[in-house]
């Protein structure tokens, strides 16, 4: 088994685009949650979202390519380009046939679909735009990355709701570790701000009417976000041999399912996913210093996640820092795991643990150290990134600070 390094990061998010802006915002506890502007917010019972600010497709794509790609697919490509540049990859030295692209995506091109349905059902156009299918498909981002880079190895998209990109990164990690591929571009993207899709979230009554306050007693629900994040994974030895900068190592991946309920979380499924991730990476619970929580800000998730962490870590749970960066980049569904893995990697590299923003008051049901509102300057050796999806699908990644 090979050790696997993270050597490049790219981010598009409501908290900032570009890994440096993203990380600056997270360390400052600066939330990207604002009044929604992409949709007419007066139509909804909630008004806030973490939209990517000032995004112009023509900054990144020629007009014809932009026509082909829904916003979510563009985010995958834009974050991939930053990650590739960050890793200092020289494509002439990369074995593209043995490189993988694995992306996570929950719902694909929702705004494209919305436009098509408006044409069809409202405007009675009798037809939709012919680019609807290529724009909507959840693998559009992964496929475009393959076309743009010339990567011909395994390229696919994982869809497990809010865990999608954690599953994607975990599978890519295992492929690199076991020598199935020599390198992987892994992460995910999502663009949630379309009227029809937001109405569906509104109907579930889980979106907060104010903001996202994970683990705070006055939390009122989640806040949706959009964006993309990609990580470059390669064998540690190869990374060191080519003189690459190593952010951290990815050491473990655990995945389980609750077999319980389509929306209600369970304690057992998340707990066993955390245990598996540590076991997979040979990590003892006492070595873990930080958990980037799933931390959606719903009443149910945060209390259940707290119980799961206590069950797994016992007394050590009180020595962990557990924060939810969703309080700043929102819940970007299929992109969430990748944004949070990126935050976790940067936390290990920088020795700064990002806070839980918008935190007001302690909740006895969420009695962990959640780094309320202030980042923590603290070096940790191991960290976990938790993702727990609707449908009871859990994915946990374990990372180790660079030696």
């Amino acid at each position, binding site marked *: 088994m090979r050790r696997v390094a993270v050597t490049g990061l790219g981010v598009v998010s409501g908290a900032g685009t570009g890994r440096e802006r993203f990380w600056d915002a997270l360390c400052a506890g600066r939330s990207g949650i604002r009044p929604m502007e992409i949709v007419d917010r007066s139509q909804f019972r909630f008004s806030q979202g973490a939209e990517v600010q000032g995004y112009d497709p023509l900054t990144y794509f*020629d*007009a014809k390519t932009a026509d082909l790609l829904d916003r979510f697919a563009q985010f995958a490509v834009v974050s991939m380009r930053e990650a590739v540049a960050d890793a200092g990859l020289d494509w002439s030295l990369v074995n593209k046939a043995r490189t993988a692209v694995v992306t996570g995506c929950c719902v694909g091109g929702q705004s494209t679909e919305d436009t098509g349905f408006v044409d069809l059902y409202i405007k009675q156009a009798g*037809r939709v735009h*012919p*680019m609807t299918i290529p724009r909507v498909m959840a693998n559009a981002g992964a496929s475009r990355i393959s076309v743009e880079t010339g990567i011909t190895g395994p390229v696919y998209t994982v869809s497990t709701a809010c865990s999608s990109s954690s599953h994607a990164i975990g599978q890519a990690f295992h492929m690199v570790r076991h020598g199935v591929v020599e390198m992987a571009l892994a992460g995910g993207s999502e663009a949630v701000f379309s009227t029809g899709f937001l109405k569906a979230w509104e109907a579930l009554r889980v979106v907060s009417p104010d903001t996202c306050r994970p683990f705070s007693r006055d939390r009122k629900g989640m806040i949706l976000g959009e964006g993309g994040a990609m990580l470059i994974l390669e064998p540690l030895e190869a990374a060191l041999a080519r003189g690459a900068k190593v952010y951290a190592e990815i050491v473990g991946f655990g995945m389980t399912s609750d077999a319980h309920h389509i929306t209600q979380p369970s304690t057992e499924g998340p707990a066993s996913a955390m245990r598996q991730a540590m076991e997979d990476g040979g990590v003892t619970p006492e070595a873990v210093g930080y958990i980037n929580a799933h931390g959606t800000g719903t009443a149910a998730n945060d209390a259940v996640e707290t119980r799961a962490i206590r069950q797994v870590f016992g007394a050590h749970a009180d020595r962990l820092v557990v924060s939810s960066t969703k309080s700043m980049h929102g819940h970007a569904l299929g992109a969430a795991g990748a944004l949070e893995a990126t935050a976790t990697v940067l936390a290990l590299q920088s020795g700064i643990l990002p806070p839980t923003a918008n935190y007001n008051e302690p909740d006895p049901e969420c009695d962990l150290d959640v780094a309320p509102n202030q980042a923590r300057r603290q070096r940790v050796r191991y960290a976990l990134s938790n993702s727990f999806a609707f449908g009871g699908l859990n994915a946990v990644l374990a990372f180790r600070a660079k030696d």
Partner: protein
Amino acid sequence: MPENLIARLIGCVASTQHIAAEGIRAESTFEELGIDSLDGINILFALENEFKIQIPDNAAQHAKTIGDLAEGVRALILAQHPGSGTEAGNGASA
């Protein structure tokens, strides 16, 4: 071939392809213009809008040039808007 029809057709091609209309002539082949099969589907969609016609799935299969496309469009206008001449479908792009 009415010049108006050619000009409108070239306008559709230019806008869907994001290329300048000045560079497109009746003799231009799709190959010269870098138009692939997916681009072709986009262009047919724009032409259906512009001329208020319905283009059957395989109707444009053998068209190789802008002129071929214009011939096909003219025939469809005459068939689908009889009596309106080749000026049919005017204003349809609005």
